[in-house]
C-alpha cells in the first residue's frame, strides 16, 4: 500500500486494506494427505469386507444363499470370457443413458417453461406432486402394454423417474432466484429474454445441477426395474435369471457390475458439479 489518501482532491481512492496474498508453499502431504488417507481407508474397508465375507461363507453362512467372493469373481471372469457380461451391460448402459438424457432434457425444459409463469407453476404443482408420488414401478405394466418389453420401455421408465426429479428441482431453483438480483438486471435494462439467459438460468443452476445429480441413480433404478419386470436382456435380466436358477454367485456378479456403473456415473456428475461451483465461497482449496 502506498501513502494513505490524505489528499482528497481527486484521483482514485485508496483500496482500503487489500488482503495479503502469498504462495502457500504446501508440502506434498499437506496437499494430498487427506485424499491419501481417505482412499487408503476406503480400500482397506472394501478389502476387509471381502475377506470377512470369504471367511464366513462356509463355516458360518450358507454359500448357497450368500455365495462367496471367489465364486463371484469366477463367475465374472466366466461372463467376461463368453461375452455375456458385455452384451448385457451394454444393453443396460444404453437404457440408463437414454432414459437419463430424455428425462433430464424434458425435465429442464418443462421446469423452466412452467417456472417462468408463476400462476402456471402454482396450478400445476399439486398434479406434479401427485404424479411424482406414484411409485414408478406401478407404471411398468402400462408401459409394457404400450411399448412392449424392448429397450424403449426401459428407457421410458428410467426417463419418467429422472423427469420428475429434474423438473421439480428446476422449478424450485428458478423460484429461489433472488428477487433483488432480478430487479438489479431489470434496472440495468434487461429484456425478458436477457433476464432468462443472463440471470434466471445461471442463478437457478445450483437447483438444476442438484436435480441432475440426484436423478442419476434413478435412471439406473428405472432401467433395472424395467428389466426385472419383463425382459430377456440386460443386467436386471441377468439378476432375475440367476436368482431363478439359484445361482447366487451370478446375482452378486451382476450387482457388482451395477455398482461399478453407478460409481462411474456418480463420479462424472461430481466433476460436472465441481466445475460449475467455482463462484461458491472459497474454502481451503490450494492449487
Amino acid at each position, binding site marked *: 500500500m502506498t501513502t494513505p489518501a490524505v489528499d*482528497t482532491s481527486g484521483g*482514485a481512492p485508496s483500496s*482500503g486494506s487489500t488482503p495479503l496474498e502469498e504462495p502457500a508453499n504446501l508440502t506434498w502431504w499437506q496437499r494430498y494427505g487427506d485424499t491419501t488417507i481417505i482412499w487408503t481407508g476406503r480400500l482397506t474397508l472394501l478389502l476387509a469386507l471381502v475377506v470377512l465375507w470369504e471367511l464366513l461363507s462356509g463355516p458360518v453362512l450358507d454359500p448357497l444363499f450368500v455365495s462367496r467372493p471367489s465364486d463371484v469373481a469366477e463367475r465374472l471372469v466366466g461372463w467376461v470370457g463368453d461375452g455375456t457380461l458385455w452384451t448385457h451391460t451394454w444393453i443396460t448402459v444404453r437404457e440408463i443413458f437414454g432414459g437419463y438424457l430424455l428425462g433430464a432434457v424434458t425435465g429442464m425444459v418443462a421446469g423452466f417453461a412452467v417456472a417462468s409463469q408463476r400462476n402456471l407453476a402454482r396450478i400445476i404443482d399439486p398434479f406434479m406432486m401427485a404424479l411424482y408420488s406414484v411409485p414408478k414401478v406401478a407404471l411398468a405394466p402400462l408401459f409394457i402394454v404400450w411399448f412392449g418389453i424392448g429397450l424403449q420401455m426401459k428407457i421410458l421408465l428410467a426417463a419418467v423417474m429422472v423427469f420428475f426429479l429434474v423438473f421439480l428441482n428446476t422449478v424450485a431453483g428458478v423460484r429461489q432466484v433472488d428477487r*433483488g438480483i432480478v430487479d*438489479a438486471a431489470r*434496472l*440495468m435494462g434487461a429484456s425478458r429474454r436477457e433476464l432468462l439467459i443472463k440471470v434466471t438460468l445461471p442463478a437457478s443452476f445450483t437447483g438444476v445441477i442438484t436435480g441432475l445429480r440426484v436423478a442419476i441413480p434413478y435412471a439406473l433404478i428405472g432401467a433395472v426395474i424395467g428389466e426385472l419386470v419383463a425382459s430377456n436382456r440386460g443386467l436386471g435380466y441377468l439378476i432375475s435369471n440367476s436368482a431363478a436358477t439359484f445361482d447366487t454367485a451370478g446375482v452378486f456378479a451382476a450387482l457388482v457390475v451395477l455398482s461399478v456403473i453407478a460409481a462411474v456415473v456418480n463420479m462424472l456428475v461430481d466433476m460436472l458439479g465441481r466445475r460449475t461451483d467455482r463462484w461458491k*465461497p472459497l474454502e481451503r482449496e490450494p492449487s
Partner: protein
Amino acid sequence: MQSSILEATDVEKSFVKGDKRIVALRGFNLAVAEGSFVTVVGRSGCGKSTMLNMMAGLTKPTAGQITLRGEPVQGPRAEVGYLTQDDTLLPWREVRRNVEMPMELQGVGKRRRRETAQELIELVGLQGFEKHYPRELSGGMRRRASLARLLAGDPQTLLLDEPFGALDAQLRTDLQVELLRLWRGSGRTVVFVTHDLEEALLLGDRVVVLGPVGRLLLDEPVEIARPRDPDDVRVDERFVHLHKKLGAALKEGAL
C-alpha cells in the same frame, strides 16, 4: 430554480400482508430539481427505500403518482441508476464481468466494455480484484463494485440507498469526494439516502428529513460553499446550525 426531473405527488404505498395493510408511505410529496443533489435522511423504517423503489420503477405507488420528466414512471429505465440498499451483484460473475453487465445490456462492444470497466474499477479502488467473485470480497468492496456497476450504465439520475454505510471512515470520505467529482458540472441528478446527518450535509444541495410513513419533517437548502472539506465543514456555522436542526426534527418526528 431549475425544473424538477423527478416528482412525487400525493404518493401512498402500502403492502397487504394477510388481512393487514402495512403503510410504508402516505401523502408523500417531493420534487427533485434537475441537476441537484438531494440527500434524504430518516430513521430506519420510515419509507426511504420504498420511495427510491418507486422512483426507480421497481414498484408502483398504491395511490398518487411519480413522474420522471413529466411522464409517469412505468418501469425501470436505463437513464435512472439505482444502487439498492442490499447487495445485488451477480454471484457467478467476477467483479469485472459484473461491472460490464449494464454495458453488455446496452450493446456496448467487448473492447469498450473492458476498458470502461477497468477505469471504473480503478475509480472505486478495486484494482487487483477484477477476477474475484463477489463472495470473495468484503462487504465494503462489494459495495464499491456495485457503485462501479451503477456508473457503468452511465445513468443521468442516480438513486443511492445508504451507499457508503458499510465502509470505513477513510474509504467513505474517498468515495464521497469521488461521487461529488462525478456529479459536479455533469448535470446529473442525485437522490442520496443516508441515516448519517453529517454525510447528508456534506454532500447535499438540499436535505430532506422524513418521519414515520414518509412524513416530511424538514426540507432545507444546505447552502454551504463547495468544495466542502470534510474537516473544515464540521465547524462551519451553517453546518452546525443545520445539524442541530436536523437532529431536533428527527427526534421530534420519532414521537
